[in-house]
């Protein structure tokens, strides 16, 4: 660092620029950023190319937006609790078929879109 000349009058007032992580990520250890490449979630306001902030720390509930494993890929869906069965089973709809959710990756906490 150069120390010639007058000290800057702003010295001591420097702050970090705004860090969007503060807003988007509460649990750094369990949060992952993923990119949405599908096209079935337009109704939820999620479009192809959006970034999803996915937190794995929270367990999904009825109505959670989540990233789940569907066969050999990850997909983003709205989960619903079955009202018929006693044990808590989560379901999702894909291409108008209903699937039982077997493996949740994490809950979607935020959607980031560059416009």
């Amino acid at each position, binding site marked *: *660092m150069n120390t010639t000349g007058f000290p800057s009058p702003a010295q001591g007032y420097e702050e970090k620029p705004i860090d969007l992580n503060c807003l988007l990520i509460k649990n*750094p*250890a*369990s949060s*992952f950023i993923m990119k*949405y*490449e*599908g096209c079935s979630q337009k109704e939820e306001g999620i479009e192809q190319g959006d970034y999803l902030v996915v937190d794995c720390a929270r367990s999904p509930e009825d109505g959670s937006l989540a990233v789940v494993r569907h066969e050999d*890929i*990850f997909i983003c869906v709205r989960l619903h609790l079955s009202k018929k069965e006693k044990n808590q089973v989560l379901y999702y709809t894909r291409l108008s078929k209903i699937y039982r959710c077997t493996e949740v990756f994490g809950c979607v906490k935020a959607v980031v879109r560059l416009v």
Partner: protein
Amino acid sequence: MIFHVDANSFYASCEQLFRPDLDGKPIAVLSNNDGVIIALNQECKNLGLKRGDTYFTVRDRCRAWGVNVFSSNYTLYADISTRLNILYSAFAPETEIYSIDESFLYFPNWNNADFPQMGMDLKHLVMQSVHMPVSVGIAPTKTLSKLCNKLAKSRGGVCFWDNMDKDYELKSIATSDIWGIGLSKTRTLARHGIHTALDLKNMSLDKAKKLLTIQGMKTVQELNEISALDCIERETRQNITTSKSFAQGVADLPQLETALAEYTQLAVYRMRNEKSACAYISIYLMTARQYDRSRKDEEYFNGATAQFNHPTSFLPEILAAGTEILRTIYREGYKYRKVMVNLLGLEADNQVQGDLFEDTLIIDKKKQDAVMTACDQINRKYGRLCLHPGSRNAVKDISPDGQYAQWHMKRDFLSPSYTTQISSVPRVW
């Protein structure tokens, strides 16, 4: 009580994390330059492949069997490891990072606790938060907790020493499987008729000291549930950890930077004493754990890892990287309780092998060595940390510009940096 936590087939598990299509399929990870297999999952072991197989000799078999082969992606492994350590720090009062996939968690003076349940809770926490399978060994000493971890692998992932039929278990474990008993010690012991862990446990301490030196004697004490290993003691350790706990919460970044500078220097000093250099540095920052639900907002645990272009033991370079990480993970408004420095990927600090085109690299390295050797000598003479770097802003921009990064490294099967590059994040459909 001490927990030893070990991630199962860590590198292979990391490669599988964002590849649901690889679930249940064989995965092998190759060393730098794609030379030998350094990690493999159970499915791959079942095919008869082993750690240490040269890829060249098994390549055809891997293709025929459909083994998924990866070059080592240390960037990914270090990031996942950092996440595990953040979880551990939030779970236990005191932690010690032993290697990229192993840690010790300390619960000093915890008596009335359901330890097996805590072990299961930890296992579930890690599985849910980072999707990593871990096993947990729980015992009063480090040697026994490491031993319990081995047992845990075949017993549902958690093993608590006090619930074991102790002598029966020890009888079926060979001396060579005990932490700290290497090949030469195994041979010495065999000559004296000592073959099992139980034989070793019942050995008299004076005899142990005579046969195995003070290190071996400590192992015998540890087998007898007496804590004897205070810090990491191993012939070539894989990382060095130093940490500073604050009596009162610190919210101020400059104050944290000063503490970081002091503890980075200490870690580098220890590393230089062992004539090692590090390839990575991790910094962890944490508040106190809040058990009161209404005060959960006061909790913050974070950490991050940076990779050097070249293994280094040059304090200004290491501290510059550490400070940068600290500034990145620091968030205003929290009262921090602890800052932790971890130097990873240790290797012998050899003179850099250069060629015609890397003259400047060799000269730089020589100059850095001269500076650091002089500092070490002064500090040795006048007391530790007598000569120290001015922390704040003083070391900016010293790190080299990356022109010799990763030169001629062969990594044909490298997976994306899923968690550290925005262009490589996993895809969701």
